[in-house]
């Protein structure tokens, strides 16, 4: 169980809601001897890595990691002693693939079930020396465990590491790719029969038997600069109490040297746990003195919520704090709206900064689902 990783995967899961459940792609695939050799060595290296102290701790480490921690773990696996022979193979000239990837498969239950592969890809063959990339591939699944590590995936791809993003369709290969090992042929899309790559998967438990799966890959970091960036979560697991930040009122803006308006957004954290949520999740709302922004962002919490208000400063690519609000359950009355003033005065000299937020407690003692 890793609640944090499920929350961080949730914005990537939005894409699967339009997915379909099967189109009948060809399941036969011919794998070249050089690809087979790489996969064989990858499996062998993985088995050896699994017996090392680091490998034995992997599942426990992943179960307490956030997304960033999982990514760091993956890129580090290839540097371990067990994978050195594989790395030599991947450096050979004339390989008939553009990139090699290693990824950890994680299942998450977010009302819908998703499977996510958090991976790391390096250039091989003609792409040797090109930028590596980090990616997240998401697909629909009958989610079983919340944030559970369920397997490892190795992939050989036609494209360069920075060009693995977008829609694809994975079909389980007839007879496996390597002996009995489950393998998938990945097509570029529903209407495209070009093969993007082939993967093999080593499951940690019982296989879930997905025959066909539409998926979408986000390139979240690459040295070539062609990336989708990190997505911020909006989904919040349920807690006992529920409030709505009904509105933000601007009584007086902060002078920021770029016009009369402030570019306002806020973040919040419930009960001092987990990472901050943002609203708007991206971008900001322009506000001037007298403006009321009916933002309507809701928050699950047990005892307290910390809300921090910022003025996004596009000039300096930085943000200035303009409000700090601490909300305790004991401050609130069910079904009534309370106005909170900033606990920190951000005014400076003649520059008076004054924002308030209006909060309604809408439910208490809610059973968590």
């Amino acid at each position, binding site marked *: 169980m890793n609640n944090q990783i499920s929350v961080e995967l949730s914005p990537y899961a939005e894409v699967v809601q339009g997915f379909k459940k099967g189109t009948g792609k060809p399941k036969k695939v011919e794998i070249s001897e050089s690809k087979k050799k790489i996969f064989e060595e990858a499996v062998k290296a993985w088995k050896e890595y699994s017996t090392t102290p680091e490998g034995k701790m992997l599942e426990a480490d992943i179960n307490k990691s956030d997304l960033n921690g999982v990514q760091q773990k993956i890129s580090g696996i290839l540097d371990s002693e067990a994978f050195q022979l594989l790395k030599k193979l991947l450096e050979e000239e004339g390989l008939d693939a553009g990139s090699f990837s290693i990824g950890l498969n994680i299942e998450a239950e977010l009302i819908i079930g998703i499977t996510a592969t958090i991976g790391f890809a390096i250039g091989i063959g003609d792409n040797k020396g090109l930028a590596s990339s980090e990616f997240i591939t998401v697909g629909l699944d009958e989610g079983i465990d919340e944030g559970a590590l369920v397997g490892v995936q190795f992939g050989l791809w036609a494209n360069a590491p920075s060009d693995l993003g977008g829609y694809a369709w994975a079909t389980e290969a007839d007879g496996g790719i390597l002996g009995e090992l489950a393998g998938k042929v990945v097509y570029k899309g529903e209407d495209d029969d070009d093969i993007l790559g082939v993967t093999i998967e080593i499951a940690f438990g019982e296989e879930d038997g997905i025959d066909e799966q539409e998926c*979408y890959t986000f390139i979240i970091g690459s040295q070539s600069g062609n990336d*989708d960036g990190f997505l911020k979560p909006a989904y*919040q697991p349920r807690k006992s109490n529920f409030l709505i930040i009904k509105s933000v009122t601007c009584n007086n803006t902060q002078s920021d040297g770029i016009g009369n308006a402030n570019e306002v957004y806020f973040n919040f954290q419930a009960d001092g746990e987990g990472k901050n949520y943002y609203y708007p999740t991206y971008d900001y709302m322009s506000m*001037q003195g007298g403006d009321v922004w009916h933002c309507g962002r*809701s928050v699950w919490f047990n005892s307290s919520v910390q809300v921090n208000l910022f003025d996004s400063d596009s000039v300096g690519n930085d943000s200035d704090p303009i409000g700090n609000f601490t909300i305790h359950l004991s401050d609130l009355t069910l079904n009534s709206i309370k106005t909170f003033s900033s606990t920190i005065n951000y005014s400076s000299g003649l520059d008076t900064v004054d924002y308030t937020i209006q909060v309604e407690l*809408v439910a208490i003692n809610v059973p968590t689902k």
Partner: protein
Amino acid sequence: MSKHSITITNIQCHGTSESGHDEVYLICQSDAGLPIRIPAGINVNHPMSSGDTWAVNQTLNYDYEVLVTLWDEDLSYDPNLATYLQSIDFAAGTLGLGLGTIQLTNRNGANYSVSYNLLS
């Protein structure tokens, strides 16, 4: 089973956040749960200029509230680059059953009306 249902019937554009048109999509989040994107497909949006109407006809279920955020998708699929247009939070007990329209404006020029039918 959710306690309440509302149908977003249509969205009208009276002004855009940028010259030309906005590439509009909605993120709808019930009770702080998993957001739903409309249109569902990634890289899919509804281009709108002043005077345009988008027949959304999407029903949303919720226990306490559903937050509907209008976004302008810029360039490619990357929400980090999207422009926030405005939002409306439909909270239980704040609106009467039946049809209604709420106008949303933003200092960036966005001016949209969201029409709804509160079903229960």
